[in-house]
């Protein structure tokens, strides 16, 4: 069984076609990267799962079940949690409340607010502060914590390293590798090739709404990958 499968998916915003026949798959516990330059449709892959972009052709399966017109809240219930680009922390909620919001699905699993605090101790210290009073790196941890609260089988992260200092990115590498070893599948949407290399085992490269390259990471040179995202 696959956790997520796109087969020849075409996705639109209104009448603008953004994904033009994308196929990709993520199996249980797999760690994959989705690479590509600005504006090629990476976020639209996540938005298709969420039903924010409209799928008009192809087949989308989540947890082995076909989704014809997913609603925004379906993916989380089906075991796919998305850490959105720009983090989208809810400003009127405290750090703790932002985490509790992530538990809306009530999916059973190991993640609780306390377990998230153990993973990111800084969040425990800031528990009663507004979520947006945190630094960028801390907000990224909060966004990951919030997504984990749904006890996902697959965690999708959309450009989590954007705007973060290299030391913070190194911490994210550690955390994602720990999650990966614990069996959570990871789909890392990124332009930071070094980061991707340290986390994933397989990759897809998007260009103009199509998959133009894919494969396993071992044996592929850093330069060859960088060519796909450099301008």
């Amino acid at each position, binding site marked *: 069984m696959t956790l997520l499968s796109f087969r020849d998916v075409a996705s639109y915003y209104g009448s603008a076609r953004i994904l033009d026949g994308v196929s990709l798959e993520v199996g249980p516990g797999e760690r994959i990267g989705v690479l590509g330059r600005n504006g090629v449709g990476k976020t639209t892959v996540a938005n298709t799962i*969420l039903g*924010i972009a409209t799928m008009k052709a192809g087949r989308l399966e989540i947890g082995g079940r076909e989704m014809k017109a997913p*609603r*925004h*809240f379906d*993916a*989380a*219930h089906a075991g796919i949690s*998305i850490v*959105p680009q720009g983090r*989208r922390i*809810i*400003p*009127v*909620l405290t750090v703790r*409340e932002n985490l*509790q*919001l*992530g538990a*809306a*699905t009530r999916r059973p699993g190991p993640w609780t607010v306390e377990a998230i605090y153990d993973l990111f101790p800084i969040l425990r210290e800031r528990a009663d502060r507004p979520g947006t009073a945190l630094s960028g790196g801390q907000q990224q941890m909060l966004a990951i914590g*919030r997504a984990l609260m*749904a006890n996902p089988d697959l965690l999708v992260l959309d450009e989590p390293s954007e705007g973060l200092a290299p030391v913070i990115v190194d911490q994210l590498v550690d955390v994602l590798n720990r999650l990966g070893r614990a069996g959570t599948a990871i789909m890392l949407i990124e332009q930071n090739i070094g980061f991707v290399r340290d986390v994933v085992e397989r990759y897809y490269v998007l260009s103009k709404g199509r998959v133009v390259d894919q494969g396993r990471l071992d044996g592929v040179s850093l330069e060859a990958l960088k060519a796909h995202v450099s301008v």
Partner: protein
Amino acid sequence: MTIHILNGFVYGGLLYILSVGLVLIFGLRRVVNFAHGGLFMVGAYVGYAVALHAGFFTGLAAAIAVLAAIGILLDIGVFRPLQRHDPLLTVLVTFGILLILEDLVRSIWGKDYVTVSVPALLSGNVEFLGLQYPVYRLMVIALALVTMAGLTLWLKRSAIGLHVRASSVDAVTTAMQGVNTDRVSATVVGIGAALAGMSGVVAGPLLTLSPSMGSYILVDCFIVVVVGGLGSFTGAFLAAMAIGQIHNFGIVYLPWAASSIPFLIMIGVLIWRPQGLAGGAST
């Protein structure tokens, strides 16, 4: 003097219960709901009609239930389908609904004024702050306080309250967490409408019932919401109490200006502090 202040709080309490529903609905749906006055008025008539046969409190319960159902239908049938359109369209539709509700009530109960008497259980006076004051009026103030406390607890402590606060600022991100935001909206509009219905029934013994009573009070209600800051619950409470006082003192001391003072205050607030007195601060 004391009696005028208390009367101001009674009207303010009524305005608060009505306005807070408007604030809830605006917070979630970004809809300025002109139908809210109609919901208030329908609540008053449903309460009155049921009370004739089954007593005041059964009437109150019936109005709350009927209006909650109307609110849920309003959200599913009107706000949801119109959410991707120009907000002005929704405003016009809610204005149309107000007119339809007024016509409907007029055709059922006529356009004459109807008076409702205070329920026997709450009739009479009681000694309060050194004067004889009607029990019913004190209960209206108490109901406003209980409503405020209940709503605050619900919003701050319950899981749905968390989802309501979150979807008021970012519905898409809230939905991504697995929250069925459509259901949250229907619940909130149902509660807002139920509060409007409740305030209509409670207003029965204080005001006279007529099909236009809703459009009349809606004006004060909008002033409360603007002065308090759109989307602010504390602001709505403070503004409702202030408008209640002004309304009452105006009637007593400046009858010729009573109805225009609240407008002047609203215009002043819009000029000096367009986000409202408590606006900008969350909830």
